[in-house]
């Protein structure tokens, strides 16, 4: 098969993995109530709202995922250096990363809930045990996909093995550093986009739809599910319908357009034959990126205009 076809084929694999990684990253943060909406779960007992949410605020999602992914990447990298096949090394590394994440998920929940004793918030042991495995499994899915992406793009991965091109198609960064980069990025995206569906809509589902959550509502979270008392597991089922896939789509689109514009630029610069011109390759990539940027600004203009026309000015008190 033509080398350039193989490069595009591996890029498509990376994009699909990116979508899955970010989807599970967002759902994992919802499962344990990590990141920004955790401020409400933290505030609820102080407002007299005793709840059965899992209260996991390890750190910001970016740092938390950078650590889990870098641990996974380092373990996988060591195993690959010993000649172990990637099919074993990548899931094993991700498993270690998820185990460390599970330990880090345990301590903040117990510590924070214990600190809420003065507000009569109990530590529900069924909530504690019941959420740990879903947290670890969601985390594993995200970390294994990120480690696989880093492996494919690293100098020891399949992209580097493709010969017959003017320049190497892989990234010069080593596997653990790529895991760190994508870990931070996936966490930043999950925190920026997916949290909105959880924090604005799901946590305040008993408040009027279609308005920003006023400061006086803060801490007064919705504690009842479709049947019985709500736990953090009920959040995941809801956010998996919109917030999670939208977050996955964000990371997938970023990886798609970053790789696509670079590859198109490389082809314009003579990747597959003829004289290689790095200036032309990078210049075409930059030009395509700028055009996409302008399209994004126009899309936002249209979206905001549509929302203003459809919803109209704020009505109510």
């Amino acid at each position, binding site marked *: 098969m033509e080398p350039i076809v193989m490069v595009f084929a591996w890029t498509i694999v990376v994009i699909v993995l990116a979508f899955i990684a970010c989807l599970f990253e967002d759902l994992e943060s919802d499962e344990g109530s990590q990141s*920004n*909406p955790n401020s409400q779960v933290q505030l609820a007992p102080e407002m007299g709202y005793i709840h059965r949410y899992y209260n996991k605020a390890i750190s*910001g999602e970016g*740092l938390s995922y950078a650590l889990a992914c870098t641990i996974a990447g380092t373990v996988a990298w060591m195993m690959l250096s010993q000649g172990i096949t990637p099919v074993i090394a990548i899931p094993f590394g991700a498993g270690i990363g998820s185990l460390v994440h599970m330990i880090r998920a345990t301590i903040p929940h117990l510590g924070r809930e214990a600190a809420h004793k003065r507000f009569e918030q109990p530590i529900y042991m069924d909530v504690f045990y019941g959420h740990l495995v879903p947290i670890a499994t969601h985390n594993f899915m995200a970390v294994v996909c990120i480690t696989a992406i880093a492996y494919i793009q690293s100098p020891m991965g399949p992209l580097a093995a493709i010969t017959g091109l003017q320049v190497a198609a892989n*990234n*010069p*960064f080593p596997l*653990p*550093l790529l895991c760190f*980069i994508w870990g*931070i*990025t996936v966490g*930043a995206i999950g*925190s*920026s*986009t*997916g*949290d*909105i*569906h*959880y*924090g*604005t*809509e799901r946590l*305040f589902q008993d408040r009027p739809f*279609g*308005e*920003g*959550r*006023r400061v006086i*509502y*803060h801490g007064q979270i919705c504690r009842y599910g479709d049947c019985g008392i709500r736990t953090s597991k009920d959040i995941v089922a809801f956010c998996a319908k919109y917030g999670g896939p939208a*977050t996955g789509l964000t990371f997938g*689109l*970023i990886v798609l357009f*970053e790789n696509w*514009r*670079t590859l198109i630029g*490389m082809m314009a*610069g003579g990747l597959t034959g003829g004289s290689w011109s*790095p*200036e032309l390759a*990078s*210049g075409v*990539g930059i030009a395509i*990126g700028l055009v*996409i*940027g302008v399209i*994004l*600004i126009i899309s*936002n*203009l249209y*979206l*905001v*205009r549509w*929302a*203003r026309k459809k*919803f109209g000015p*704020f009505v109510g*008190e």
Partner: protein
Amino acid sequence: MDPIILVLILVSAVIGGMMASLGVHLLPVGGAPAAMATATGVATGCVMLMTGSALTGLFTASAVASFWEFEHANIGLVALSGGVGAMLMIGWTMLVANLLYVFGAGIVPVSGRVAVDPITKESQTEYKTPRTDGHGMPNVSYISGIAGGFVGGFGGALIYVTLENYAHFSPATAGIVAIGIFIANAILAAYNIGGTIEGFHDPKFKERIAVGLFAAFTVSLLCGILVVVATLVFPYLGLGGAL
């Protein structure tokens, strides 16, 4: 090592660091309140958002820098590639965040700090929920964010390409040093902002940008001196250690 190269490292560290700081100030950052649609901006912290976007830019910049195999890379083109990469990351993130506000929560993106959008001239006040500080990404914040991502990504990639191509660090070492200088400046800028900011139209931007840039200059200069000393004392940094 050639003194011109040492000056180039120092200058690129200072310019890159100051651009990182400027980029953070331009981003619309809503922090935790934005996740509840209580404040305008992206629902995460300054440092995380800027680092996430700059690292995406750095990923592309490192690939572009490897196009020049046997000669010095073109600093401008590599830095521009990084800037455009970071811009696209922040652009997609803000667009999908707005999609979530509009279709997931039925909220119109509006600014809480200005009555009229300075770019599109659309009125903001009557669309805002009372007792909130705005919600979503209005057009002015979106464009400010795109500019902030571009500037920040450009700065990060500039530090990387200078270290990798001219100081002859290995790609991994150059990447880690660039990330280090970048994050130091991003954290300083986050302290300077102190909470939320909507972009260049926010009154906070004009009030605090001068102090932020001065702090970034000082820290970047110190970082640059450290890198120059490290380059002179440990010339084997170019091998990149175990990585």
